[in-house]
């Protein structure tokens, strides 16, 4: 190794390594067209090629890969949800994440820091005890803890009772982690590209040709492509793209904002979330404090930033960590979240026979990227959703069989 390094350092040859192949022309036909080059679309493309040998696949993105919510989220992964189906699914996704750096040969900076969801009311203590029991039953590390244990794990938190909402307890999830989000998009894209998948950036889908209940061609800003099957994975724009395909969704598009502070010396190990105070925080490897809260108060297709968000967030954050008053905000941004009524995703088949959907990822779908990609690849290849994702079918709303994850997903993404 040192010798190779030395030879590389002294040598003149610098191989030009590209992550994606050079842009290509669109082919007239693909077996599978994936709309949306976020983590979910790219992961599905990778598993289609890798696990199912389907490589005549195109991923189309209207912008650049990972430029949607995949590159905008706050990178938290966890599996301490509330419903059995949710816990099982997210635990599988974390299992895949843990070995993904090796599989994709890219450093995803998977870092397990522990995750604390604070409770400030009796009602949230109750929900957390419920979550802890469901989690443990399904083998996920999760425990309701009291203030002493919180102080041991995170001594920086203000545990004083002389605040508006004193901390009464917390749901501790020691395996909660963060993952470098853009690397997930790049890693899946590169691996899929190497297996023959075509990735077309700057290619917006503007319509579908539909005959006899199936999509026969996809209209794009660069021309028309014939398709065997179509997977829609466009997050906040799901309703618009599905409208082109002629069906409606139980989804509202609402912005979610986040921000980071200037970098400061490392002081905070775990991820801290407070549902009652609508805020969460963790410290990145660069020392920046990554902060966010709940979604905006009304639906919107704009990623503008608001002062209301910052004021609301900081007012509460200063109660948890008063010394943050000295720290400046450096950047802020927003993404368009595809919110479902039950805070659970929609995965599986659609009213069109060769069209599949992964959506409703709202504010919580980054952690789901590997499991959704893998399960949706199987769903597309076999024309049948694997058992892991069957409960997340679109029809559950019409059948009044929702999944009720609000207690675990409304602020802690």
């Amino acid at each position, binding site marked *: 190794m040192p010798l190779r390094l030395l030879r590389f350092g002294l040598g003149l040859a610098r191989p030009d390594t590209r992550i994606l192949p050079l842009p290509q022309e669109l082919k007239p036909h693909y077996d599978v067209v994936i709309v949306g080059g976020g983590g979910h679309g790219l992961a599905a493309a990778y598993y289609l090629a890798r696990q199912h040998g389907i490589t005549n696949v195109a991923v189309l993105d209207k912008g650049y890969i990972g430029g949607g919510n995949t590159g905008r989220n706050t990178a938290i992964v966890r599996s301490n949800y509330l419903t059995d189906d949710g816990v099982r699914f997210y635990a599988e996704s974390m299992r895949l994440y843990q070995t993904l750096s090796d599989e994709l040969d890219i450093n995803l900076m998977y870092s397990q820091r522990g995750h604390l969801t604070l409770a400030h009311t009796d009602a949230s203590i109750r929900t957390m005890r419920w979550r802890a029991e469901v989690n443990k039953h399904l083998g996920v590390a999760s425990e309701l803890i009291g203030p002493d244990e919180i102080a041991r794990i995170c001594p920086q938190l203000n545990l004083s009772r002389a605040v508006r909402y004193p901390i009464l307890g917390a749901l501790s999830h020691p395996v909660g982690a963060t993952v470098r989000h853009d690397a997930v998009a790049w890693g899946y894209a590169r691996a899929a590209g190497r297996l023959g998948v075509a990735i077309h950036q700057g290619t917006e889908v503007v319509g579908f040709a539909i005959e006899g209940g199936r999509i026969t061609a996809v209209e794009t800003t660069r021309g028309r492509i014939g398709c065997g099957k179509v997977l829609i994975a466009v997050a906040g724009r799901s*309703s*618009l793209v599905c409208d082109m395909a002629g069906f*409606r969704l139980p989804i509202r598009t609402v912005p979610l904002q986040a921000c980071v502070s200037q970098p400061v010396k490392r002081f905070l190990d775990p991820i801290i979330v407070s549902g009652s105070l609508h805020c969460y925080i963790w410290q990145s490897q660069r020392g920046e404090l990554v902060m966010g809260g709940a979604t905006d*108060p009304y*639906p919107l*297709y*704009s990623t503008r930033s608001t*002062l*209301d968000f910052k004021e609301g967030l900081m007012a509460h954050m200063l109660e948890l960590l008063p010394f943050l008053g000295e720290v400046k905000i450096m950047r802020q941004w927003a993404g368009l979240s595809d919110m479902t009524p039950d805070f659970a995703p929609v995965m599986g088949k659609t009213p069109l026979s060769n069209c599949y959907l992964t959506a409703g990822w709202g504010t919580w779908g980054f952690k789901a990227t590997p499991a959704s990609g893998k399960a949706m690849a199987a769903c597309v290849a076999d024309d049948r959703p694997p058992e892991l994702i069957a409960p997340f079918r679109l029809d559950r*709303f019409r059948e009044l069989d929702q999944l009720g994850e609000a207690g675990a997903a409304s602020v802690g993404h």
Partner: protein
Amino acid sequence: MKIMPCPLNGPRNIQEFICRGEVRIPPAADASAEAWAEYLFYRENKAGIVREWWCHLPTTFWFIAERDTRTDEIIRTYTFDALDESGSGR
């Protein structure tokens, strides 16, 4: 601060209001469970001009607002009777 022009209270901070979603016609009381599910859960979720129910919380005054969801502009607000008069179809 974003301002919402309330038909009763005049221009106020939008934080005093709550958005309760698209104006739609509820199904008949004896409609099928599927029709009710459609009404309760499914949405147009349009990128463009939408017509929604809003409420000014301190006065619990309900009214209608038209907004552009692409630009975050509030175009106009009016009371429920004005919606009926304009005949613009609920």
